[in-house]
C-alpha cells in the first residue's frame, strides 16, 4: 500500500485501507459497490463488482468481478488485517438500471445477491443507495466510514 491519501478502485477490483485513507471508485452503473467498515479499527474496504454470481462464470480467476465472491473476498481480507467479522458494517451503492428501455436487470440482481451474501456472512447493511437509473461515483472515508456518493443530476450525498 502506498502512502497516498486516495486509492482508486477499478471495475472488478477492490482496495482495503486504514484511516485516514480514502478509497474511490468511478462510474457505478449496473455494477455494485460494497463497502465494509470496522468502526473500532477504522479500517475499511471497497469492492466494485460487475456481475451477480461467480457460479455462472466461465473464468473464475477474478473473484472481485462478481458480487457474491467479491464480498466474501473483501470480508476475508479485512479480517486478515485484524478486524472481526462481527464488527463489520456494510453499505451498498449502485445496481442502477441505466438504460430505461432495456430489460437487462443485472443491477437489480447484483443488489439482491449482495444482500443475500451479506446476510449469509452475518454482516448487517447499515445504509444503501441503490437502484434507480443513474450512475454513481463513490468515495469511502476510512476515518469515519462515510460514503460520499456523487451523481450528475441528483447532486451529492453522504450515507
Amino acid at each position, binding site marked *: 500500500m502506498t502512502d497516498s491519501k486516495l486509492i482508486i478502485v*477499478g*471495475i*472488478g*477490483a477492490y482496495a482495503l485501507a486504514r484511516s485516514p485513507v480514502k478509497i474511490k471508485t*468511478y*462510474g*457505478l*452503473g*449496473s*455494477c455494485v459497490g460494497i463497502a465494509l467498515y470496522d468502526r473500532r479499527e477504522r479500517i475499511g474496504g471497497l469492492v466494485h463488482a*460487475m*456481475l451477480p454470481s461467480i457460479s455462472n462464470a*466461465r*473464468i473464475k480467476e*477474478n473473484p472481485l*468481478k462478481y458480487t457474491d465472491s467479491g464480498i466474501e473476498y473483501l470480508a476475508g481480507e479485512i479480517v486478515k488485517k485484524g478486524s472481526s467479522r462481527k464488527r463489520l458494517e456494510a453499505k451498498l451503492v449502485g445496481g*442502477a438500471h*441505466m*438504460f*430505461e*428501455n*432495456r430489460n*437487462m436487470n*443485472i443491477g437489480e440482481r447484483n443488489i439482491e445477491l449482495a444482500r443475500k451474501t451479506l446476510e449469509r456472512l452475518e454482516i448487517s447493511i447499515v445504509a444503501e443507495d441503490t437502484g434507480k*437509473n*443513474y*450512475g*454513481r*461515483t463513490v468515495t469511502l472515508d476510512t476515518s469515519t466510514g462515510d460514503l460520499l456518493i*456523487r*451523481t*450528475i*443530476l441528483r447532486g451529492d450525498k453522504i450515507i
Partner: protein
Amino acid sequence: MEEGKNLKNLREYEYGALRELENIGIGNSATSLYKLTNNLVQTRVLGAKFELIENIPKITGISEFPVLGSFMHIEKDLSGYILIFFPEKSVKNLSIILSGEDRGIDSVDTISRSLIEEVSHILAGTYVTALSTFLGLNILISTPYTVYDMFGSILNSVLTEMSCKTDFALLLDAEFLIKEEKIYGNVLTLFDPASLEYILKRIDEIFPRKSA
C-alpha cells in the same frame, strides 16, 4: 474460453490491420458528420486492443465526466457494441448547428438528446456499413439506447452487459473533432472474441500474406 486465451497476444501486423479497419469506420462516420454539419471533421484513431473486459476502462480511462452516450448492438455476422459519447458542450453546439436555433439551454434537454441520438445512430450506421463493405460481411446495428450520465457509468454498464456473454473484448477507440464549432465525440467499438477471429480471417483472405 480457449478462443479468448489463444487470441490474447495479437501480432503487431494484426493490430495494424485492426487500426486500419477502425480508420475506415471512423473516416466514413466523419464524412456523414461533415454532410450533416457542413464543417470540416478531423478524426483520430486512438488504438485497438484485445483485453479482458474488466481491463477495458484502464485503456479508455474512466471518469465521472458528464456525457450523452448512445450505445447500439452490432448484429448479424459480427457481434458487439458501438458506443458514441458527446460531452455536454458538444451536445449543445451540435444541436445549434442541426436545429438552427440556440434555445439558450445549457443542460441536455429532450430535444437535443433526441437530435444527438439520431446523429449517433447515423454515425454508427456509417461506421458499420463501411466495415461491412470492406470485409464483405453483413453487419447491422440495433436502435440506439441513449442516456445522459457519467462516462464511467455508461461504459461500465455496457461492459457489464457484454461480460454476461464473453470475458474478452476487442476495443477500437477513435475520436472526432469539429474544431471551429468545438464539437468533440468519442466512438468505442467492442467486438466479442469470435467476431475478432472472423475479422482477422477475412483480412487474411482479402490480403493473403506470404508465409514467412
